[in-house]
């Protein structure tokens, strides 16, 4: 191919051009500014019904609202935390229809009729869930920001092991997984604790599960 004009250009020139032409706004490459403008000129709202902590809520929501933001900003259930909004930290973990999920990675409108349990639904300061009490006893937290997600995950993890769902750490896919620290650590690894309370968290979960950490 004959492209003599390009040859004298340095990489820097190319990059500058690239910035001017393509990377002018912070849009992902698959959405043009025009299309996005059209879409945002008519926000779509929808009504939906959520069951959260055994209570029914009727909501009218922008369809772009994540389940996490529906909980935090609309229902004011701020126990579920936003640590990354990208499914990378686990602080937003809630239990939806019996399974733990990252509530930042799912839209609220996908949960019409779902039964959601958040940290507020597990227990209250006066009536702690056994997992919450164990976290306090073992000092399984420090700043407290990842803690609701850790606790929701922990409660669900013990359920998953009981149900025989295998993990990466399970020696066999067909035998029931063992209730041991290694299994719990593997399954809890989607919940980051930057304060580094892991050793204590595993002790807390193990105590509730009745195993030696």
């Amino acid at each position: 191919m004959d492209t003599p004009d390009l040859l004298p250009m340095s990489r820097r020139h190319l990059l500058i051009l690239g910035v001017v032409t393509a990377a002018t706004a912070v849009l992902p490459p698959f959405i043009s500014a025009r299309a996005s403008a059209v879409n945002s000129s008519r926000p779509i709202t929808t009504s939906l019904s959520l069951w959260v902590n055994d209570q029914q809520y009727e909501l009218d929501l922008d369809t772009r609202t994540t389940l996490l933001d529906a909980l935090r900003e609309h229902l004011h259930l701020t126990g579920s935390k936003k640590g990354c909004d990208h499914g990378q930290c686990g602080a937003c973990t809630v239990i939806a229809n019996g399974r733990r999920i990252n509530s930042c990675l799912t839209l609220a409108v996908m949960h019409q009729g779902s039964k959601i349990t958040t940290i507020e639904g597990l227990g209250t300061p006066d009536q702690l869930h056994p997992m919450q009490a164990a976290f306090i006893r073992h000092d399984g937290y420090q700043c407290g920001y990842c803690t609701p997600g850790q606790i929701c995950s922990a409660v669900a993890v013990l359920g998953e092991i009981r149900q025989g769902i295998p993990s990466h750490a399970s020696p066999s896919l067909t035998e029931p997984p063992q209730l041991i620290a290694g299994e719990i650590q593997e399954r809890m690894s989607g919940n980051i604790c930057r304060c580094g309370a892991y050793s204590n968290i595993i002790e807390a979960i193990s105590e509730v599960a009745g195993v030696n950490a």
Partner: protein
Amino acid sequence: MKFDTPAQTNPIDQLKVIGKATTRIEGPLKTTGQAPYAYEHHDAVANQAYGVVVGAAIAKGRITSMKLEQAQAAPGVLAIVTAANAGKLGKGKYNTAKLLGGPEIQHYHQAVALVVAETFEQAQAAASLIDVQYQRSDGAFDLRSVQASGVEEKEQMADTLHGDFDGAFAAAPVQLDATYSTPDQAHAMMEPMASMAAWDGDKLTLWTSNQMIAWSVDDLATTLGIPKENVRLISPYIGGGFGGKLFIRADTVLAALGARLAKRPVKVALTRPLIFNNCTHRPATIQRIRIGATADGKITAMAHEGWSGDLPGGKVELAAQPSKLLYAAENRRVTMRLSTLDLPEGNAMRAPGEAPGMMALEIAMDEMAHKLNIDPVQFRILNDTQVDPVKPERPFSQRHLIECLRTGAERFGWDRRHAQPGNQREGRWLIGMGVGVAFRNNLTVKSGARVRLNDRGIVTVETDMTDIGTGSYTIIAQTAAEMLGVGLDQVVVRLGDSSFPASSGSGGQFGGNCSTAGVYAACVKLREAVAQRLGVSVEDAEFVDGHVRVGEQNLPLRDAARNGELVAEDAIEFAELSKKFQQSTFGAHFVEVAVDSATGETRVRRMLAVCAAGRILNPTSARSQVIGAMTMGVGAALMEELAVDRQLGFFVNHDLAGYEVPVHADIPHQEVIFLDETDPVSSPMKAKGVGELGLCGVSAAIANAVYNATGIRVREYPITLDKLLDKLPPMS
């Protein structure tokens, strides 16, 4: 209260509450999701709007144009803040780069706009419609390429040149000359920087997430050009800081500006992908260490020379600093050089200076021990010093490093370590043990508090001290309970509000000791007020079980407040003692690793820290501080690295998927032992800091364990598989 002579016996020494393992008093709130963090104060003020920050897409240069029309016309948009309409902004004392860029851009993802809208979704969508054009300028993004231009920053760290290093090193029969590097690291605290601002006339209230309330009131007032009396900061719960929230950041300033422009309360959280380049980080370092010793292991010459970079007017990372004090040597050279880089702002991260410094120094000590054929524990013991080696007339107030090393070696089973590396296998795993010394200075900072007693006998403590996960709520409650002879359930602690007396704040591991000492001082005053009200002599009074005992008299404490609440306020102020004595904290880390002989994957199997850090106020939260620091040290050793795009000048892996921090599966059960120590030189509490100590030296202990397992010496952190893979011993 002036603290200018070592503490005598005082009510804290009763140790009825202080020193007892105590679960966190705010635990029931945190574990049930009831503790409100910065973005969660829904009830504080009505009509809250949402702000989303737009970050610069270049590292250095200028904005040539900014088209806001589409964003302004987008549904729900209330206001857009840019440098063009923000008015004249100052720069806070603790910020290096401006918090709102434009037209000049100082670093990648520097904030250039805030879009305020009715909802978060609308603000985010509109933020993506802002069209910014830039003109790039050249910048320096690679520390190695600017290393030679580094300069001494006399005010931050002047060179220590003691004796004749060059002569002594040349004459030393055993020498080490090695260069190490530590990468840029991110705090990666779990709670993003977040603030909500509300104006009432010219008064500004900010609910935020901040470690240093008084500093930040000053800096926000300076930035906005308003009197600091008009600024109130409220920060009761902080989802981690590690130094990243010592200062106001873009969320704080832009929330204030957005709220002013939109005439509504506005809340702003930095999105996770913005935080890594928009906020501060721990700067990368290059460190050259030379040690000369006699054949029997006595260090005669030590040089620790380091290099780091930052934006113009920025800070040097004081990595070489621990080599001023840690080991005896008659001839010494300790220097740091700072070069200009156009990467995002470098600043304090947990144990600034010491953390990266000890990562290098404690590998060097291990290397030297091997050269000398002396056990690494013994080599460190041989070179202990009980005085400041450069000023021998200045002793350490307490220094129990040798006990830490000996206790740890015994408890860990150090005698089972194979001195020859690469000699222990378990199936496909190569097993090794490593040791590293922990060392961090103890700083003392003025700290104030107010204490109230009501007619129900409830004691309320108010201070602007913060709890960033460190356990401040609990140790402050323990202090007040001990001083006034009441149970913990009789104490209420209110923190993180600038309307309370200014405290030390949370940083430099000084917060625990200093803030409780401030509460101690206020409680001493309250005890005097109580005695006066009850008509007894405070010298004769004992405060026990909610009563004041004087001889045969046993008066209920609450009676002192029968005719009105009693309020006392004071601050602890530290004087000359830190000049007369060197105050430091010490520890020893022991680590066992297994390295996969085929893949080079390193697994940490056992960890033990032994610490000597003054009186341990609450063994529960102090232990958590140390295991948390050990965990961060695993990250620093094995995975954490902000990858620099040296062409475009930014950190590439700017989220929690790309910037890897330890997860559950990376961390084994961890053990911590605190030596029984009280340090009357540090404060009336006789305590010292512990939160950063636990991070210092642990990464080197891991590096040394990897060496012991494999025989491979990695001097460039983090120790990832690629640095081991082609050097692993042959498969057996």
